[in-house]
């Protein structure tokens, strides 16, 4: 049961990374790709109907951490106090930028919200990468789950590598999405960006894997469960296939990129299994799915709720993606309801 929940927990994070990943990527790329107000508005509206629904996956991932592994939630969130609050502030500014940007017309007003959008996309991508890499490596927690470190300790080489990897991964993912949703000059620029980002992403993945071998015990743990290598294989296949399809179909390239994110998330998180927060002070202090999980009754009820509700959620979210599956054009931007 605990393992099922560990799997679902990983899946929720992976879905969040896939869905909000392209939002965060496009926001980070905005200053590089959009050269005028129209192009910036295309970037906002390419996330328009989705970003809110996408962000709920983060809330659900957080909520499920709380519900299924309350001890892990308690230790993780209090240990990562500063980065989490910075993440939160970024997401706040990013979200209100959508709604507020178009409500004023001075250049300063619009520029300020564009800055919020860019930083509010870039920093969360970076911080999520830093946080997860540090979790893979282990953080200094003692036997009572008290964290002995500070935010600077999280910015170690491996943590930073994780951060950079996430930024590039989301940017690539976002560039593909933008290529799908835009037209004309911006579409060309998005396509070029994707082509430039891919080799960067590949090299960063290789660097990260090498560093994972050096800094973490993930590979030793994965070796005990060879099935987990399926995740790594999925990631590699997704990444390579994404490049191969890039010239023929951006949509398939985007789906492959999503598979890559899924595979990488599973590879990283299952590298901790059965740990959920590894202690770098003493492995005995580590929090595992067994000492962190909720009671069997709660896990059972939550499983029922999740298995009933999440497929329905996926259905209606898919319907929304399908309903708004058109390009953002000058015509659609004339709609008074667009951002």
């Amino acid at each position, binding site marked *: 049961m605990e393992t099922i929940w560990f799997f679902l927990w990983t899946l929720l994070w992976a879905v969040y990374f896939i869905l909000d990943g392209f939002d965060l990527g496009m926001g980070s790329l905005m200053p590089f790709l959009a050269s005028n107000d129209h192009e910036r508005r295309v970037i906002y509206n390419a996330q328009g109907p989705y970003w809110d*629904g996408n962000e709920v996956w983060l809330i659900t991932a957080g*909520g499920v*951490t709380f*519900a299924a592994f*309350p001890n892990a939630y308690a230790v993780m969130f209090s240990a990562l106090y500063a980065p989490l609050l910075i993440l939160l502030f970024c997401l706040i500014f990013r979200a209100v930028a959508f709604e507020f940007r178009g*409500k004023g017309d001075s250049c300063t007003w619009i520029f300020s919200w564009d800055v919020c959008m860019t930083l509010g996309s870039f920093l969360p991508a970076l911080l999520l990468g830093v946080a997860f890499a540090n979790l893979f490596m282990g953080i200094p927690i003692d036997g009572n789950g008290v964290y002995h470190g500070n935010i600077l300790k999280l910015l170690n080489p491996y943590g930073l590598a994780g951060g950079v990897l996430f930024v590039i991964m989301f940017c690539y993912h976002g560039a593909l999405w933008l290529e799908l949703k835009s037209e004309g000059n911006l579409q060309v620029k998005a396509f070029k960006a994707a082509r430039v980002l891919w080799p960067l992403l590949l090299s960063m993945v290789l660097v990260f894997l090498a560093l994972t071998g050096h800094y973490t015990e993930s590979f030793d743990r994965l070796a005990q469960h060879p099935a987990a290598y399926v995740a790594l294989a999925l990631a590699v296949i997704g990444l390579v296939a994404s490049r191969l399809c890039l010239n023929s179909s951006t949509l398939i390239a985007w789906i492959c990129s999503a598979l890559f994110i899924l595979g990488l998330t599973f590879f990283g998180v299952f590298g901790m299994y059965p740990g959920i927060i590894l202690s770098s002070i003493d492995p005995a202090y580590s929090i595992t799915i067994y000492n962190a999980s*909720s009671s069997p009754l709660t896990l059972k009820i939550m499983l029922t709720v999740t298995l009933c509700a999440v497929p329905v959620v996926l259905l209606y979210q898919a319907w*929304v993606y399908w309903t708004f599956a058109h390009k953002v054009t000058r015509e659609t931007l004339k709609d008074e309801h*667009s951002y």
Partner: protein
Amino acid sequence: MDLILLSRLQFAMTVFFHFIFVPLTLGLSVLLAIMETLYVRTGDDDYKRMVKFLGKLFLINFVLGVVTGITLEFQFGTNWSRYSAYVGDIFGSLLAIEATVAFFLESTFVAVWTFGWEKVNKKVHCFAIWMVAIAGNISALWIILANGFMQHPVGYVIRNGRAELDDFFAVVSNPYAWGEYFHTVSSAWMLGGFFVLGVAAWHLARKNEVALFTKAVRIAAPFTLIMALLVGVAGHQQGMNVAQYQPAKMAAMESHWTTQTRAPMYLLAWPDQENSRNLVEALPIPGLMSFIAFNDVNAEVKGLSDFAKEDIPPVLPTFLSFRIMVAMGCLFIFVAAWAWWRRKDIASDTRLAKILPWMIPLPYITIMFGWTVAEVGRQPWIVYNLMRTSDAVSPVPTSSVLLSVIAFLVIYTLLGLIDIWLLYTNSRKGPEPAKPAQEA
């Protein structure tokens, strides 16, 4: 400053700020759904413009509700980790269920509603706002069930050094939580009603879009009156729940020190917690306190002096908040009845038309006082009679919390000001002018 106080300050600040946006979302979404249904039924373009105009205000408000809500979910872990570990088995699952069954629905359909005017047909579009309204109010139910567990914990057993779920049905049928839910939701719907009445009255006084805003008033006025009355009924019910399950809070709400039957309510009173008495006590209404607590003027009400000192909540804020809440509640019934009486032509009653826009902030303030009664009145417990607030706080450095309190203060003040400014300017702009007949 110490860690517990700072953490409480931060929680109070962030939860109050969040709750500026929540009640309008709950109440206005229902009103918008009613208005849009009328549009679909009658084809009257006024309703459509009304929905679009109020919808713009709704969305400005909605986005802030979403983002400030994430703060709260994170904060149980960042600042109250010992609490989270102790009751997460129950509390965490309620929050997770809220996200999966309600919040997804709300966030997804709000997008359909916002962007779908031209993309989906009228009926689907109207269905979307109903989904937003229903999902939002279901969302509120799960959150209140979680709060209800803190107020009156049920359905748990202490096992493995924490509270574990024992009876899920008991948790979701917690009578305290349901009383709290009806009281909260009816007040939120009333707030939405006063919001529409205030905006409409402002425009009617200026002869803007008279036909449209009169129609809006005719929807909002009876709605507000019914809700204002229901808030009172649900409040009285909840008062009896408090008396039964949290007698110390009940006594603090009335600053009632000595256990007695036929307990009076003093119209004038001022608590002196240090000396376990009231400094001032005048104008008693015999039996009213017994009635509030037990619906029986002769019932015995336990006084604060009969509780251990360390179990008594801060009396002054609980007492004052309760007083102000009740007084405001009476005012709301009066004004709502007045608006309902003049619903056909509000502008002809200049006094009413002037008062209504100024009514908008009052339900907000009153709801804050209501939550102060609920939350301060529960102290010193974070989970009533189960866990003390002082045992719940995260082992994080005080300096981190101080910094985050300052950051929240700055960011939330900024956002609050922008929000008020945007609502103010956009509500004054009024609806888009009607299209010429041939286009419509």
